[in-house]
Each structure stands twice: as C-alpha cells, then as structure tokens.
C-alpha cells in the first residue's frame, strides 16, 4: 500500500527528471556487450566445433553449444531493442552463470582438456564481471540521479501543514541548504541554494501538481544547472494524530563542475539531510521555530558538532538556522496552546 502511494508520487514528480535514465558510460558498455553477445552467438551457432576446441570441451557437445549461441544472440538483440537495456544485460549475467556451470561440469570429464577449460573459464569470468557491473549501473537509478525520501508525523492538521509548505518562501526556514525561494507567480519559483565555499547555485522551478491538503510536486525548468524535482504528500494520520508528511527529492546534476559540486552537496547522505530538514520542519510546525542546542549551532553532523557549552557572541554570528531566521509569527492563531500540563499522576 505504502509503496503504491510512493510510486504515485514519483510519477507526479519525475516527469522530466527521470531517475532511471542510465548514464552514457553504462549505455556504451551495454552496447559493447550486445555486439559481443551477437558475435559470440554467431560463432557458437555456425562453428560449434571450433568453439568446443578453443574452450577444451568435448566435440560431442556441439548441439548444446549451438543452443547457447542462440541464447547469446537473443541477449544481444534484447540489448539493442531496449532504450534501457537492463533486462538484456541481466540475461547475459544469467547466461554467464550457465556457461560457468557447463564449463565446471565439462572439467569433471576425464577426457577434458583442463588447461583450455581453465582459460575459457577465466575469460567467461572476466566478461561476467563486466556484465554484472553494467547491469547494476543500469538497474540502480543511482549512478546519476541522487534520490532521497523521508517522512515524519506532524501534530497539526493536513490543512495547516500543506499551507505552510505550499508557501515555498517558508522552505528555507527548515531546509538547511536552501537560502531562499522566491515566488515568481504562475506556480513558478526561483531557488537559491548554498554551496560549498560560499558558492550559490540557483535555478527556476515550476509546480507540476498541486492538490490542496494532499500533494505538491515541483521540478526545475529546462536548462537548469541542477535538474531536480520534489514531491511532498500529506496524509491525515489515523485517530486525529496529525499529518504524515512524505517527501521525495531527486537531483540530477548535469552541468560539469557545478553539477559535481551539487552532487557532493547532496550526495553524501541525502536521506540524512532530508531527515534533518524534516525534523526541523516538524519543530517549526509544532513549536514555532527550529530548536537549537549548543552542540548543533553549525549542524547536526558528527563533524559539525561543537562542545555542549555556550557559544561566544562572535561564534553565534556564524551560526545557521538560528530561531531569529526560522521563527513563525507568534501571537497569531498559528501559535500552539502551550504551558505546563496539569499533573495527572498517581498523586
């Protein structure tokens, strides 16, 4: 159930920034393997006795070798027929396993030429390694796109939570890396993100889908430096326990050095960053501002922790996510009921 919901969300968000798009190098490798398949397949089909001789297998096995040739050709055709040849390459991996098994069985035959079988096995193993590498690159959406998903429960109604998020200018209040989001009207927005060494990355984005109190998805416009998309879904938690917020983010850095920089920015632990952002989102929604401790003035990572002792004023000036930047306007109806709960113990 949950998976379906997520897939639905992904469809909204990934209109252009397709996570599954394979990288150029993986595609090239797949094509090479496709030609290799067809070449080897033709050789096995047309000259099975020569193949048997090279690999040290009994010449009585020509029927089986011809069958394997057909399998190779089929795999090759599959690779060329698909835009994303994942299945073709995986079928090659399965074929490699079959080849290795056959060679292993052949080696047990007393008349087998052990040296040649060993040579053939080494070759198949080398190709298997290539096949597996290529197939994994094609299968994972990870070689290019950086994907993060996360969720949290907010003790507020979906209407409140949606309204806060829908005003994109609120996002920098809990997203550590986002410096500002400017509303350009017509569902368009301009994003400015803090990069390493004080460099900012900017792009324009547009809302793809917007169902009040349920879902918002957005993606960057064509020719952005950072091709990215996001989706947030709001579900009413059972029993009146607020709102379950589910977020998917996708970054496809495309433009050279800048892209690499952004990959680094978002790449190390993207889900951890998203979790931290969602924790701050929950704090802003539930207590009105981001909650800071002495140790986390510069972030919650291991490397950014400072000692749990007060910071000097000069150090505080450098701190990020201070409440002065994140607080909601108190005193409005937004503010939550506060105050000490009345004692309700056994006393």
């Amino acid at each position: 159930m949950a998976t379906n919901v997520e897939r639905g969300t992904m469809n909204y968000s990934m209109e252009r920034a397709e996570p599954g798009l394979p990288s150029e190098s993986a595609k090239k490798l797949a094509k090479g393997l496709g030609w290799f398949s067809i070449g080897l397949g033709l050789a096995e089909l047309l000259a099975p006795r020569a193949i048997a001789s090279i690999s040290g297998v009994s010449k009585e096995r020509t029927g089986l070798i011809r069958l394997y040739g057909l399998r190779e050709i089929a795999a090759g055709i599959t690779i060329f027929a698909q835009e994303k040849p994942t299945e073709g390459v995986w079928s090659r991996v399965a074929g490699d396993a079959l080849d290795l098994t056959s060679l292993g069985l052949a080696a047990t035959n007393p008349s087998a030429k052990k040296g040649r079988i060993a040579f053939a096995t080494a070759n198949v193993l080398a190709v298997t390694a290539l096949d597996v590498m290529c197939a994994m690159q094609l299968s994972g959406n990870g070689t290019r796109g950086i994907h993060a998903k996360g969720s949290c429960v907010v003790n507020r109604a979906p209407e409140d939570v949606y309204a806060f998020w829908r005003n994109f200018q609120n996002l920098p209040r809990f997203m550590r890396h986002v410096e500002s989001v400017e509303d350009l009207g017509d569902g368009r927005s301009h994003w400015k993100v803090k990069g390493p060494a004080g460099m900012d990355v900017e792009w324009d984005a547009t809302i793809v889908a917007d169902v009040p109190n349920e879902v918002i998805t957005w993606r960057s416009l064509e020719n952005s430096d950072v091709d990215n998309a996001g989706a947030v879904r709001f579900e009413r938690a059972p029993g009146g326990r607020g709102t379950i917020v589910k977020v998917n983010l996708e970054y496809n850095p495309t433009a050279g050095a800048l892209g690499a920089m952004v990959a680094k920015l978002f790449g190390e632990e993207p889900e951890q960053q998203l979790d931290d952002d969602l924790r701050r989102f929950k704090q802003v929604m539930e207590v009105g501002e981001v909650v800071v401790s002495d140790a986390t003035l510069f972030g919650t990572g291991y490397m950014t922790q400072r000692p749990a002792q007060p910071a000097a004023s000069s150090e505080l000036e450098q701190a990020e996510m201070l409440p002065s930047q994140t607080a909601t306007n108190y005193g409005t109806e937004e503010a939550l009921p506060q105050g000490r709960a009345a004692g309700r113990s056994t006393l």
Partner: protein
Amino acid sequence: MRAHCWYGKTITSVQEVPDPQILNQRDAIVKISSTAICGSDLHLYNGFIPTMQRGDILGHEFMGEVVEVGREVHNLKVGDRVVVPFPIACGNCFFCKQEMFSLCENSNPNAWMAEKMFGHAPAGIFGYSHLTGGYAGGQAEYARVPFADVGPIKVPSTLSDEQVLFLSDIFPTGWMGAEMCDIKPGDTIAIWGCGPVGQFSIRSAFLLGAERVIAIDEIPERLQMAEQGGAETINYAEQNVYEALMDKTGGRGPDACIDDVGMEAHAPGIIHAYDRVKQAMMLETDRPHALREAIMCCRNGGTVSVIGVYGGFMDKFPIGSLMNRSITIKTGQAHVQRYMRPLLERIENGDIDPSFVVTHRMSLEDAPLGYDIFKNKKDNCIKIVLKPDWTGNGNGTVH
C-alpha cells in the same frame, strides 16, 4: 562564567566559558544557586556513554533564579526562583501531550544519533552527551533553559534549596520507579541500589502504599539510610540476595522489583568479573547484574521496574524467566515535568523532606574533587550539592 566541563574519561575541570544567551524564544536563562552530582553523571565520567565531546558542560540537576526570559515565556519573570527538570520537553508534540516528557520529539536536535543506537530517539537532556541533544549542563553559574514555559517550576521561598533541588531528577525518578510497580495494599517491594535514587524509591514506595520495602546494596551508610527510611535491608556482599528475598517472602518473591542501579552494576565474585571483562572489551555496554537478579527474584506475575540508566546492550538477559512467569517490565527516563507539581505539594505538606539525602556540600570549583569522592564512595558520600557562590572554607567538603 565558570562551568564544570568534561575532557575525557574521569578527566573534568572547572573552566571559564562564555555566558549563555537566549537562542529560542521560549528560553530562559537561570542563575544557578544549587546543582547536584547525579549517579548517572558517573556513567559519563567513567566513559560509558558515547558521543561526549571535550568541553561539554556536565550536570542536569539544578535550580536557581530566572535572570532573563525569551519573548514567548509568559509564565516566568526575572527574579523567579525555579527548579529545572532534566528532560527538555516542548509541551506540544504527541508524547508531551501524553505527559511522556522524556520522549519529547522536538527537543533533541541530534535525534539521528540516538536513532542509530536505540531505533528511536528520546528527548534532549541537559549536560548528558550529544546523543541527547548536546545541551550545556547545569554544573555552571548560568544555564540556558529551553521551553522554559513548560519545564521549570516556581518554588516558594519558605523551602530551602536542598528541600526542592531534587525535584529536578532524583525524587521524581525514584518516585516513577515506585509508581511503575503499580503498588497495591500489602505489597512487598524489593529495591536494588540504595544510592540517592534508590533512597527516593524506598520512601516513594511507602508513600504509594507498600507494606514492606526490602533494599539491597553493600555500602553500610547507604543501607543505614535505607533503614532510616523504613526499609529492611540485604547486604549482597554478605548474603545471597535470592535466598534472602525468598526467605523474607515465604519463597514467593517480592510483588515488584525496582532496578535503581543501571548499567554499572556491581556483584560479588565471578559474575561481576565476567560482565566487567565483557564491558571492557565492548562485548556488552551494560553490566546487567542487578536487572538479571531482579527478574529472577520477582514473584510470578509481578512487575520489574527499570529506572536505573542503561545505555546500550547486554548479555545473558533472562528472557525465559521473564516470559514464562508473566512478568511485566516497565521502564523509562523519568517524565519529570509530570511529577514536579504534585511532589512539590508532598514536600510542602511535610510528607517528605528530600534534603535527608545530602551528605556533602561544596563549591562548584571543587566539582572534580566531588566526582572523585562520589565515584569512589569516599567519606560516606551519598549525595553532593555544588554551589557556585559557595563561601565555605577549605576544600568545601562540609557535612
């Protein structure tokens, strides 16, 4: 300001550090008049809690005078005398709404660290490692108190610091340990550990209606204090605890058992050596002797209340005894905010005077000495109160 900082296993020092400032709008700054050393501080001191960093200010039991309040603190004003609870709690989240304040979802910015260790994160705590938020502690001249509109309780000037200071932790903690036993008239409660929290569990168990309380320890002065509180005692160095308890209860076992010891339990002989070695080699983080024994001794269908602090993992946990005999386990860091007001009333009406537990008073400047005395149970020490404005003489150990 002066503050007691951690620099490594058993290495602490009182240092000059910047004064705290209001960072969140619901903060208050408190000028500390009294602060105590807690048994759980020794787990930090002895290096058993991960994620400590050099320079961390220790201490989570403190009280004092409000000297500054944030824009959104409306219930306190400058000059109020308050006791501060050790868990930091927002009052707005799912758990705070259920008065499970030590599970607050919003007060621990380092929740991810705790999630890696515990699966889910507990609330932030003052001066108790980065795992619980990385907040400066209260063994200092001043402290920043987040969510000051939820936590601190105002105390009347008619009561002394030592009568109310322990509302910050050990009185509510000892109380919750007893409350979790769901005590019925006629019940016998066995309590492992006669340190400060154990002493409050003993007295709380009686206040909650226990017929008999049997307290277990090996330190003579602690057993003596337990007896003054009305408990029968077992010295585990001299007697087999299981046999002594069965003897006292006709073989049935106590109705409920409280573990007021936690992760650094001591036990006689080979069992202790076994767990001590495993802990030293990181094969287990917690020495489980008290908890194992409490489970084995508890009567069928009884309750084991775990209020002593554990940090990680343990070995040889008697799950078979627990399961086959319908035993209930209840646990938790004390939800202090839930108990402060009603327990203050208990103090005001004379049901209990928590100052009985104090054996040592000294200057904040002598905190490192205090840790050494407390850890090694020197000088009949049970509870140390530190005072930033101490005017006593010598090294300040007056009792």
